[in-house]
């Protein structure tokens, strides 16, 4: 993609003293959100775009840190001068969601009431709780209404939820590789991932911090399983096929096939930096997500409350949230009279396609954003 990176960026921290009442009935008495911004908020404060992260994402959306040039944001390829989220035109905000493990208040943060990490006591957070917390950050930044709220996967679900919860504060919602709710199969995969963590002897009921250990084996398995669902069969076939690390079978249970090596590496890498309690919370937030529940399952009635214009995009090889799931959202938006465009993008990277730098995909986002009036 033409255009440039935003370059060196810095994370910021906002502290909130106002208690947040959560969907689960829990309350967070106070909390921090870490965030980053790129570009300049215009005088009318009309050019702000919120980028919501998916399961394992965070506030570091784009650019790099001055002292860590290799630590590049997870969606760097779409943000920057001349890129679709053009920082010469837009003011981009990315944050780490509540319950996260990258600096915002989450299970590994210290609970002020006990002086110990929250651990298992951290309340369950729902997508709508994130949206409310994000709205407070918007208030803090002086943003009354977003030019756009966007995200892929779980991030797209937040964009959808924003348009329902705060219709007057979202002018456009860009929902990529998402679904209006999880299928039984989606929930089943999440539960196997959770079981891997919950049954790890090092989990200690979620209070592993006190034992100075972490359920690395469980988290690693959870990630390996998740990772399979992010890729397409074709892509795995092209990348690994049945290639062996050594030329002959070893007739043992060590790493033999390249795909095993890859998955174990991904699992280890992830387990090295991610918090298991956060993984549990994020997967439950996914499972619970179903805005149409407020309308007895009538998604059309739910979406009729939104006032935004929508861009919905899916990927042909995504079997986690298939194009059919995106089309459920499209059908509801059409039936409720919203302005909506839908692109079904032919990319070979499965669910992870939404993170890829593809000229047509980025062209679609770019063309849509160019038509947004500020």
């Amino acid at each position: 993609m033409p255009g440039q990176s935003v370059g060196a960026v810095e994370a910021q921290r906002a502290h909130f003293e106002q208690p947040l009442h959560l969907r689960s009935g829990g309350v967070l008495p106070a909390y921090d959100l870490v965030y980053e911004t790129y570009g300049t908020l215009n005088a009318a404060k009309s050019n702000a775009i919120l980028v919501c992260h998916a399961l394992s994402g965070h506030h570091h959306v784009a650019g790099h840190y001055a002292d860590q040039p290799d630590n590049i944001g997870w969606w760097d390829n779409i943000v920057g001068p001349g890129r679709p989220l053009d920082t010469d035109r837009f003011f981009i905000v990315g944050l780490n969601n509540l319950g996260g493990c990258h600096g915002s208040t989450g299970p590994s943060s210290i609970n002020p009431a006990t002086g110990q990490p929250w651990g298992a006591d951290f309340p369950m957070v729902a997508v709508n709780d994130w949206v409310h917390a994000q709205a407070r950050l918007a208030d803090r930044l002086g943003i009354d209404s977003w030019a756009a709220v966007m995200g892929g996967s779980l991030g797209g679900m937040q964009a959808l939820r924003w348009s329902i919860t705060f219709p007057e504060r979202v002018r456009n919602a860009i929902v990529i590789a998402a679904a209006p709710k999880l299928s039984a199969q989606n929930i089943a995969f999440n539960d196997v991932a959770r079981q891997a963590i919950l049954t790890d002897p090092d989990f200690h009921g979620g209070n592993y911090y006190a034992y100075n250990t972490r359920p690395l084996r469980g988290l690693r398995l959870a990630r390996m399983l998740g990772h399979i669902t992010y890729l397409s069969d074709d892509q795995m076939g092209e990348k690994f096929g049945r290639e062996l690390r050594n030329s002959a079978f070893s007739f043992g249970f060590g790493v033999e096939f390249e795909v095993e090596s890859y998955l174990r590496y991904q699992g280890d890498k992830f387990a090295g930096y991610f918090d298991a309690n956060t993984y549990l919370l994020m997967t439950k937030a996914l499972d619970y997500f179903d805005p149409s529940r407020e309308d007895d399952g009538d998604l059309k009635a739910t979406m009729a409350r939104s006032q935004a214009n929508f861009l919905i995009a899916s990927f042909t090889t995504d079997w986690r949230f298939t194009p059919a799931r995106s089309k459920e959202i499209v059908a509801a938006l059409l039936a409720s009279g919203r302005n909506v465009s839908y692109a079904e993008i032919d990319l070979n990277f499965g669910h992870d396609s939404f993170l890829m730098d593809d000229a047509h995909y980025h062209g679609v986002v770019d063309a849509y954003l160019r038509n947004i009036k500020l």
Partner: protein
Amino acid sequence: MTHTLGRPDFEVIAGWVAPGDRVLDLGCGDGTLLKHLIETRGVNGVGVEIDDANVLSAIANGINIIQGNLENGLEVFADQAFDHVVLSRTLQTVRHTEGILREMLRVGREAVVSFPNFAYWKNLRSVLDGRMPVSEDLPYQWYDSPNVRFFTLLDFEALCERMGLIIRERSVLDEEGNPVTDEVNFLGSLAVYRLTQQR
């Protein structure tokens, strides 16, 4: 005669659309017709298109565009969601002819269909001369044509009768886009129909 948009059937279609109508354009390309109808008639428009480049252009044109294959039906659209469902110069490329016509009249009050007339005299002469026709309205060589159905005005009207579809209006044009009133099945190169059905 000059035609704004370079598509004489578009002008016929625009003449049948009332201000504020809800219009679905199937196979809308880059959204030229919808943009014209939005600008001149203030319609509420949505397009369906399969081609990536056209989808991108339509989004750039600010059109509500849904990417999809007409052969798979119009499942994302609710019953009677539109006043007009337009299928311009595309019916001959669709394999499930009856299916798409039924779907159009499920989601719309009225179907507007334009297609090239295979019985146009120049096409007939071409076949008599031993070659498949290539013309203003059938611009493809036989080996690269997207067209899979070749039919005439009379064929189409017979199908409408068999399906119980009501022809509300018909406009027939020659290759220059001028109206044809006599011997339409012989002198007409392009036909535009306005269809509905008993409800």
